[in-house]
Each structure stands twice: as structure tokens, then as C-alpha cells.
């Protein structure tokens, strides 16, 4: 009984404190627009900018009541946006192009990581020295068709064809496939996440991002929104990206804060590994990954997108040619370049 009343007391106190908090915040910004964000996966270092912006209250400052949600299927977020169930989502450049070909009304509004993270990885113990050595070996993939096209391109550059290797799709089981030795190489892990994990656990991985093996460069992570939604209410997306740019800049200049934010959001992560992953990831998030100083945060290069589209068409991943200018817009980016510390 005493325990119960104590609990009730704590509850009442908590509610009072929360209520006061809400009230005082309400005074500073009267009504905040709700804004839902679908992440591409459980919170991880790729999301450092989002998580720091959330922790630091940058979204509230921008007048947005942001909720972040994470799916267990990375192909779901873009569908949620197209269905109007989420305001923006994290997706991948190839996924945006495929979705548009399927008739989904989605547009990339900001680049988050403007280069490929998807990598081919093998372990030192496999005795593989270069791609050519993969002849006759088993290669695991996530079973994503455009990544199978990456593999085809990588093999072709080394003078191999698809028939020279045994390809097996293992869904989420990429790392176990090479650690167990069931597959000798894997295509699909991200070098800044799984790659770092493998390194730290002493598996001696050899990691090659796909653009180092002949696949044209593309934006691994982009922010997508629904086309019609952008026309109706352009400001919310603009405000959101500004706040995200602010959060990203803060994360880049304060890696400890970024790591803490990621670990807070996902308690299942290993702290030491996460810190190393954040360290590897922050330089990519900086300015959305772009090197040039005169571009705003999240800038997407139309020519680069077009080159990737042309490659996808050549690989028959896309059935018909598309125009990069339709698939992306830089109109919602912060006007001034954000200097990330």
C-alpha cells in the first residue's frame, strides 16, 4: 500500500512537472505543427543529426513537434511518405528512383550522406586479395535487386560474370554469412556501421565501398517527401531541414554529444562500437556529405544523379529513362551554407 501511494505521489509530481514544462514552452511558441519522420532503420549513428536536433530542441525552435519512428523494414518509410502517413522519411537514392518508376509521388528534398556506404566486404581469412579472386566463391547479398546490379558491375570490371560466383541472398544475415565462412564475401553492409563493427571485433575485414569498385557514386541516404505535400505546405519541410542542418552541425562539432544521443535513442547498441561508428559517420553527415564549401547543407548534384540513373537504366534496374530534375529538388534547403563548426 505504501509503495502504491509513493508511486502515486511520484506520478502526480511527474505529471505536474511535465505540465509546467509544457506550459512554459507553450508560452514561447504557441502552437507547434506536428511533423512525423520515418527513419530508415532503428536509431543508429547515421541518424546522429536527427537525434541531436531532437535532444537540443532545435525542432521545437523551428516550431515543429517532431516524432521520429523506426521501421524494421528499410523499404517501408518511403511508402509511408507516399501514403501520407509520414511527412518525411529517410530513403536511398536508388529506392527513390524505383519508387518514382512505380508511380509513387516522392521527391528527394535533401541529401543526408552524399556518397555510397554500401560495401563489399571479405575477411582476411578468406585469402581473397582482389575482386578477381571471387571466382567460384559464394557471395551473400541482402536480396535487393539494385544491389545485385552493383555486384554485376563490380564483377564485370574484374573480368568476371555473374555465373562465375555463387550468389545467395540472406536478408539480414550478411555479417554471419562471412564470419561463419559460409560465404566468402558479402555485398550490402555499410562501411561506417557494420564495417566498423567488424574491425573492432578483430575480424580483419577488407572493406570496399561499391563506388571504389566501379559503381557510379550516389547518395546513400536522402530525405524524401511527398510531392503534393511539398506544394501544399512547403514551409514545414524547409523548417525541418534547417533544424536538421543545425542538429548535424552540432553533432559534427561535438561527437560526444552525438554518441550520447544515439545511445539514448537505441539502448541496444554497444557503446564502444557506437562511439567508433559515430566518429566514422560524422564527416559524412557534415554538410550532407558534400565537399564544396559554397553549397548548402543537403545539396544534391543533378548531373551526378543523372549519371546514376543512366547506369540503372543500363543495368535494367529501371525499365525506362528518368530525369534527375524530377526526382530531386534543392529548393527546400537552408539558403546559406551551414558551417559545421
Amino acid at each position, binding site marked *: 500500500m505504501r509503495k502504491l501511494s509513493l508511486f502515486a505521489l511520484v506520478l502526480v509530481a511527474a505529471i505536474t512537472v511535465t505540465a509546467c514544462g509544457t506550459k512554459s514552452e507553450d508560452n514561447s511558441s504557441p502552437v507547434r505543427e506536428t511533423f512525423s519522420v520515418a527513419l530508415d532503420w532503428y536509431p543508429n549513428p547515421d541518424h546522429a543529426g536527427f537525434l541531436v536536433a531532437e535532444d537540443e530542441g532545435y525542432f521545437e525552435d523551428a516550431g515543429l513537434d517532431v516524432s521520429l519512428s523506426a521501421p524494421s*523494414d528499410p*523499404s517501408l518509410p*518511403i*511508402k509511408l511518405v*507516399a*501514403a501520407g502517413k509520414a511527412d518525411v522519411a529517410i530513403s536511398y537514392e536508388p*529506392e527513390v528512383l*524505383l*519508387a518514382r518508376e*512505380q*508511380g*509513387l509521388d516522392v521527391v528527394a528534398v535533401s541529401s543526408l550522406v552524399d556518397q555510397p556506404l554500401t560495401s563489399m566486404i571479405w575477411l582476411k581469412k578468406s585469402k581473397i586479395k582482389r575482386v578477381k579472386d571471387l571466382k567460384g566463391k*559464394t557471395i*551473400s547479398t*541482402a*536480396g*535487393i*535487386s*539494385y544491389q545485385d546490379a552493383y555486384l554485376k558491375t563490380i564483377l564485370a570490371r574484374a573480368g568476371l560474370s555473374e555465373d562465375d560466383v*555463387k*550468389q*545467395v*541472398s*540472406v*536478408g*539480414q*544475415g550478411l555479417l*554471419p*554469412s562471412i564470419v*561463419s565462412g*559460409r*560465404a566468402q564475401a558479402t555485398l550490402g553492409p555499410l562501411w561506417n556501421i557494420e564495417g566498423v563493427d567488424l574491425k573492432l571485433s578483430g575480424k580483419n575485414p577488407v572493406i570496399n565501398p561499391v563506388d571504389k569498385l566501379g559503381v557510379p557514386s550516389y547518395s546513400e541516404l536522402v530525405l524524401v517527401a511527398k510531392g503534393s505535400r511539398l506544394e501544399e505546405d512547403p514551409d514545414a519541410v524547409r523548417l525541418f531541414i534547417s533544424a536538421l542542418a543545425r542538429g548535424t552541425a552540432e553533432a559534427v562539432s561535438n561527437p560526444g554529444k552525438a554518441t550520447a544521443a544515439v545511445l539514448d535513442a537505441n539502448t541496444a547498441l554497444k557503446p564502444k562500437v557506437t562511439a567508433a561508428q559515430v566518429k566514422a559517420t560524422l564527416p559524412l553527415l557534415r554538410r550532407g556529405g558534400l565537399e564544396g564549401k559554397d553549397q548548402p547543407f543537403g545539396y544534391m548534384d543533378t548531373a551526378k544523379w543523372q549519371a546514376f540513373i543512366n547506369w540503372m537504366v543500363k543495368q535494367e534496374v529501371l525499365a525506362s529513362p528518368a530525369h534527375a530534375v524530377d526526382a530531386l529538388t534543392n529548393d527546400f534547403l537552408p539558403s546559406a551554407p551551414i558551417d559545421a563548426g
Partner: protein
Amino acid sequence: MKRWLPPLLLVAALIGLWQLAADTGFLADAFGLEPFLVPSPSEIATVLWKDRSLLAENARVTLVEIVAGFFVALAAGIGVAILFHRFGFVRRAGYPLVVASQTIPVIVIAPILVVWFGYGIGPKLAVIALICFFPIAVNTLDGLRSVDPDTVRMMRSLDASRRQVFLRVEAPAALPQAFSGSRIAVAVAVIGAVFGEWAGSDEGLGHLMLQDNAQLMTARMFASVAILSAIAMTLYGLLGLLERRVIRWR
């Protein structure tokens, strides 16, 4: 024919409603049915026809896995049931394990089985057998234990051997239950096949579904689901037919 009419009508009505929901804006809004989330039946039918060779090729692979996995489970399930029935202490020791086998989330165990058995048909058989084993074993055991003890006593008093008692009394009595268990098993076997293929494969309907999901080809994904349902229903029906042929005394 009369027996088939009600389910056919119901299925037709549901498909019609679904088509209507997909076609008319109002219903689509109400149900949140959008083609890239839930394709209409006509779209699925179109894909079924257009990609029939691709689908048939992968369905054949999955069907082989299902049937083979089912037979593994049948052998194991009936074997365990007989063992449990014959030796009480084995039953007391092993029954909790049999129940525990059902608590293993297949989607968790499948990738581990893949690492053990490789990317061939092995892990798929193991996953399917794991799912199918329980209903077969438990139903068969219940059947064996449902035999009237007086009949057994009478047989024994007439100098029947243990084997004769089993073959003439216990086995026939357990058959209907064994068939029930098998029918449940074959209906869920398709789920095991898909999980097995998701964990590691280069062909099969589950493999195709992975690809289609990543390509937002929802219609073809649903086409695979339709084929899986058809496989499960056909196998279920075949077992029913077999049951009526075998158990003539009912």
C-alpha cells in the same frame, strides 16, 4: 459441387469487395488501400499471368521444400509419438522439449540453421520440419492414447503381441488424429518455407518476395502470396482426400 459453392462465393465476394475498394477513391481512402501498399486483385492477376514462368519456376522450388520438409516432420512426428506412447518415461522426459520446440521463433532460428547447414535445401527443410513437427506429434500421441484400455486388455488376454496390438488397435485408432495434425502442419509449412528462404537462398517464392519488396513490386509480392496459399490449400485438400481413402471405417 454443392460443398464448394459457399467458400467459392465467399472468396469471390471478398475479392470483389477488395477490387471495389481499390478502384473507387472513397473506399480506397477509407481502407487506406493504395496500389503500392495493397495492389488490387486485377493487378495481382495481371502479374500472375505476365510473370507466370518466373513465378512457376520459383514456386516449384518452394513446393519441393514444403513437401520434403513435411515428410521429414511426418517421420519425426510419428516416430516421437510412438516412442512417447510406448515408453512412459521417455514421454515424461521429452514432452516439455516438444512443447519448447514450438516456442522457438522460427525467424530467429532460421539464420542460425543457415549457418549450420549452408545455403542449400537443408536449412529450409529444418525450418519447415520444426514448424510441422508439433501438430503431427501431439495429435498422433493423443490419438494413440485415446485407445480404449479395455480393448487393449482384451487383445493381450487373447495372446496378442505388442506389435499386433499396435497395428490392429492403436495405429488405426490414432490415424484420424494423425491426419488432423498433418493437415494443420501442411497448412503452416508454407510459412516455414518463406522464413527459410529469407534467411538464405537464391531461388524460391520467399527469395522472390525479398526482391519484390525491395523493388516496391507489391503486386508481384502478393502474387507470390496467392501462389503460396494455393499450394497450402491444395496440399490440405490432397491430405483430406487421402484420409477418406485410408480411413474407410469411419
